[in-house]
């Protein structure tokens, strides 16, 4: 990527100009993003509630409590499952779908139609998505259950959001429904940048579509795959909206994720210090993932 500036070390005077241009943006980030992240660390060492105006210093007690909290294990597990499924679906499946659409299997008009249709869920607000799917997933009267009954698959019918075993999976499913098309569109453009003649060469050699996919497409969009994977994993780590709207972490905390745990601790359980502890943990996990990404990119 060409950088248009002079590469010699700038003087302090010259730097001043550059700094002024970036200062506002940096200011926003420091005040609203980095500062709070650090403040959390301080908060996490206190115990206080929304009601009381006095704070008790408890040092690392909150962290200990978090470690021993069974909900923490559940939440972490759920976030991990979320990440695993999201990566498989959004990186794996989306890439395949994109490849098919880009392989000119369908006429342009239909391909565009499919892309638009699959992309659509990603523009919807989470509250609408959550509410509509809650209704669709309602036992007995919901659409999904009715379909299962009509097609004779009645034994598969469950209270998807109401049972601890399936609640988080139902939420993850809705999340995939919402975002797979978006990622697919991203991949489609990435694939478009891969030179056509590579494909043509392979085709002349008699390679099948699948082989072309593995040998040209996948390596060709390697960088996008990496970025998408990281974004998906980070997204799974910070998920809050869709879980809160659909199950609020229930039933019985079975679909709890770190985000909902944090919110609940502050605004239902009256434990703001504890909430900051959870936030700090999320922060460090995100930081680690981010650093891994930077390292992976540097190695290329």
């Amino acid at each position: 990527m060409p950088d248009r500036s002079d590469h010699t070390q700038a003087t302090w005077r010259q730097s001043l100009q550059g700094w002024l241009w970036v200062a506002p943006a940096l200011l926003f980030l420091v005040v609203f993003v980095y500062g709070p992240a650090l403040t959390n660390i301080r908060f996490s060492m206190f115990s206080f509630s929304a009601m009381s105006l006095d704070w008790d210093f408890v040092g690392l007690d909150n962290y200990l409590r978090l470690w021993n909290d069974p909900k923490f294990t559940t939440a972490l597990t759920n976030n991990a499952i979320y990440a695993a499924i999201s990566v498989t679906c959004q990186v794996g499946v989306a890439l395949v779908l994109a490849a098919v659409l880009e392989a000119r299997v369908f006429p342009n008009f239909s391909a565009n139609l499919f892309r638009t249709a699959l992309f659509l869920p990603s523009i919807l607000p989470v509250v609408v998505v959550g509410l509509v799917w809650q209704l669709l997933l309602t036992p007995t009267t919901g659409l999904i259950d009715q379909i299962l009954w009509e097609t004779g698959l009645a034994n598969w019918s469950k209270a998807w959001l109401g049972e601890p075993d399936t609640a988080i999976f139902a939420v993850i499913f809705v999340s995939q429904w919402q975002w797979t098309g978006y990622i697919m569109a991203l991949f489609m453009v990435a694939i478009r940048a891969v030179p056509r003649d590579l494909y043509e060469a392979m085709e002349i050699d008699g390679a099948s579509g699948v082989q072309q996919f593995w040998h040209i497409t996948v390596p060709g969009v390697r960088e996008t795959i990496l970025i998408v994977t990281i974004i998906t994993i980070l997204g799974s780590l910070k998920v809050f909206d869709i879980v809160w709207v659909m199950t609020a972490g229930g039933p019985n905390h079975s679909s709890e994720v770190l985000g909902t745990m944090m919110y609940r601790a502050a605004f239902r359980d009256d434990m703001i210090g504890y909430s900051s502890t959870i936030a700090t943990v999320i922060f460090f996990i995100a930081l680690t993932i981010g650093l891994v990404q930077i390292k992976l990119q540097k190695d290329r």
Partner: protein
Amino acid sequence: MAAARSFPALAVLNRVILWAIFLTLAVICVYPMIWLFLNAFKTTNDMFAATWGLPKVWHWENFSTAWNYGISRYLLNSLVVTTATVVIELSLATMAAYALVVLNFRAKAAIYTLILGGAILPPEVSLIPLFRVMAETGLYNTYFALILPNVAFGLPFTTFLIRAYMTGIPGELREAALMDGAGEARIFREVYLPLCRPILASAGLISAMRVWNEFIFALTFVESESVKTVTIGVMSFAVALRADWGVLMAGLALSILPILATFLVMQRQFVGGLTSGAVK
């Protein structure tokens, strides 16, 4: 596809399967919204009786009830917050991008990393401290309570997009202007900004979409009916109208109409913008 050449029947089967898969996916993606709109025309009893049929009577009044109930206010609030955020965000991001691409200054790489790093941090990590800041500065429950944090969290990606685009602008243009005696600010305004219109449109659209649907800040930092955005307003709407499902569906439908319309009209910019960053 070699196999297809030798066995034409296989090719046809392939094609049929692919069509089936994509059609199914398309239906799964689109149907819930169609269901929502259809049910918006029903009364509560109709909804319970036959959820997935067409409405027998088309109750258009559900929409006006929902509108009067407050959706109009929520939409207005979302519009104000989104517009202000996007405008401020684009301004700051283009300035930063310009400097990063064109100017030379110490610690440039570090600063760029710092800006990008903001993308890693989940917004909820800032929730509690920001909340206290909002309270202490009196910004709580105002438009700014939503505008400012959203700008901050949008800056990393927006700056990234704009910067990437700007690197494609030939440096000669700036050099020529410099020789004519123009200052950086003028070059920025008169040379770079006009050229950046496409990416500004895309980045603006992406930001707008993100802010419009933003949830956790809207949930925590505002509370009055006069300031609530559509995402949260719809939620309280849903709980309040516990008896009237038809009106609730109509309200939800109304709340997504603006984005649906914008999206369908401006698809190219949406997808184009999103992807230009990823490809690089």
